[in-house]
């Protein structure tokens, strides 16, 4: 194989959506291993939908996602994770869920695992929070705990859906550094982000999405004012009575 970079993901004429309305429309492209890719676009552009499709939560309407990493090597942090904050469980137990792949249904947690949990908590700056019920955490602390859990998942492909929404600058700086460290370890990171400054500063490549790919490539060339205006225009068009889209095979013919 030599220096050939393998793809972790390939989208082939991918259409994802809800109730027959496409949210991601005829997407084509590849994500190479070790990529640090930002997905940007206006609200309703299909960014979260695309992550759900990659994570396997949503089945494509047409087309397919070729995944070259096994599903258990994918870690997915959804937008506003559905954690029940009132559940009587402490930070340590929440974070240790990240070991599911190693421990599974019945496996125990040994001393090495405990050390890993402590390291993960330290990495996100939550030392001393082990015994705190999750209901007592602030929004930023909760997100740090979820990042510690991601850390323990030890995945090859990380999917982050607006991971920094409603966080203060300090927390964003810490968590961004963590994401870059993961990427430095050779893990592929795909993150949905709205903060263009952050994307320009830390993400070498960007996919600008407006149901279809407006642009996909080096961040500097993608996030131009022309492309952003184009993305907004494409997203505002929403036809309630849209006719059925012709199948790809027939369109190609």
């Amino acid at each position: 194989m030599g220096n050939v970079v393998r793809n972790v993901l390939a989208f082939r004429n991918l259409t994802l959506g809800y109730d027959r309305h496409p949210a991601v429309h005829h997407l084509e492209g590849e994500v190479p291993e070790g990529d640090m890719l930002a997905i940007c676009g206006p609200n309703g552009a299909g960014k979260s939908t695309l992550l759900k499709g990659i994570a396997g939560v949503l089945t494509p309407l047409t087309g397919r996602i070729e995944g070259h990493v096994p599903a258990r090597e994918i870690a997915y942090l959804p937008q506003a994770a559905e954690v029940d904050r009132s559940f009587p469980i402490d930070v340590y137990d929440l974070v240790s869920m990240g070991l599911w792949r190693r421990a599974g249904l019945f496996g125990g947690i040994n001393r090495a695992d405990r050390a890993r949990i402590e390291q993960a908590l330290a990495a996100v700056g939550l030392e001393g929070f082990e015994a705190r019920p999750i209901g007592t955490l602030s929004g930023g602390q909760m997100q740090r705990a979820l990042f510690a859990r991601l850390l323990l998942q030890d995945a090859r492909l990380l999917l982050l859906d607006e991971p920094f929404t409603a966080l203060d600058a300090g927390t964003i700086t810490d968590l961004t550094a963590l994401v870059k460290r993961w990427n430095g370890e050779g893990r592929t990171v795909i993150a949905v982000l709205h903060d263009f400054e952050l994307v320009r500063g830390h993400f070498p490549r960007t996919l600008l999405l407006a149901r279809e790919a407006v642009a996909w490539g080096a961040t500097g060339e993608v996030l131009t004012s022309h492309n952003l205006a184009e993305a907004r225009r494409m997203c505002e068009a929403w036809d309630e009575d849209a006719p059925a889209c012709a199948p790809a095979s027939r369109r190609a013919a």
Partner: protein
Amino acid sequence: MRPGFEESGMIYDLLIGPFAEFDFMRRALVGVLALGVGAGPIGVLMMLRRMSLAGDAMAHAILPGAAVGFLAAGLNLFAMTVGGLVAGFAVALGAGAVARATQMKEDAALAAFYLVSLALGVLLVSLRGSNVDLLHVLFGTVLALDDATLLLIVSISSLTLVALALAWRPLVLESVDPGFLRSVSRAGAPTHLIFLALVVMNLVGGFHALGTLLAVGLMMLPAAAGRFWTRELTTLVGVSVLIACASGVLGLLVSYHSGVPSGPAIILVAGGAYALSVLFGPVGGLLPRFLPQRHLEA
């Protein structure tokens, strides 16, 4: 006679005598303790999974099944148990399937299914004419548990504990963060089904002693009361089992000494425990809230 001895004799008469003297009281004691051990953890999980009222719906769904069993075979433990289990599973699975396959939420689907089940049961019973013995199904007969019924209740409790021990991790995970469990494992759906099956089984076990409707009380009241005493899951399960068993024993004694029906007495004692917890519980109870201590240093 020394006064202390007389006093201990009174306590003996009050608390232990009824059980030492009467066989049916001992059977009832075993029955309520076994029910409490099974219903405690199930109730805690129901409450934490926001299914507190789903238990009530399932109890209504079991009623017609048990009634049909009764009409087919009379006051037959096997027929009524099977009828209750079939009706309960049908409603739980049907509602679960509709909720997962369509846009409908599980609570609405459950409401639709149990109402249909209840109406069907009432129709069937009225076709065959009613019977006073049917009250047995409605309100239970904890003071007349025979060997077979006792064995059934104890078996259900034992099975519940084993099943919970095996499925505890995914059960907790699915309650805290269902999205995360979906992303790492396919255990979510089977875990939920196993849990629904345990709920139905415990309700069926409970209805022989307490009746279909009151059986839910021994699940939900101890769990709801326990929530006021601890923020920790394992402790919460322990506290709930303790409250459920204590309510069972106290309820039996109240019923024995004052001659009131035992099923409602047990649930009312559990209700008393709940009321005390709401008032005095250290975790968000009323009294700690109205007598606020000075806030801590930052």
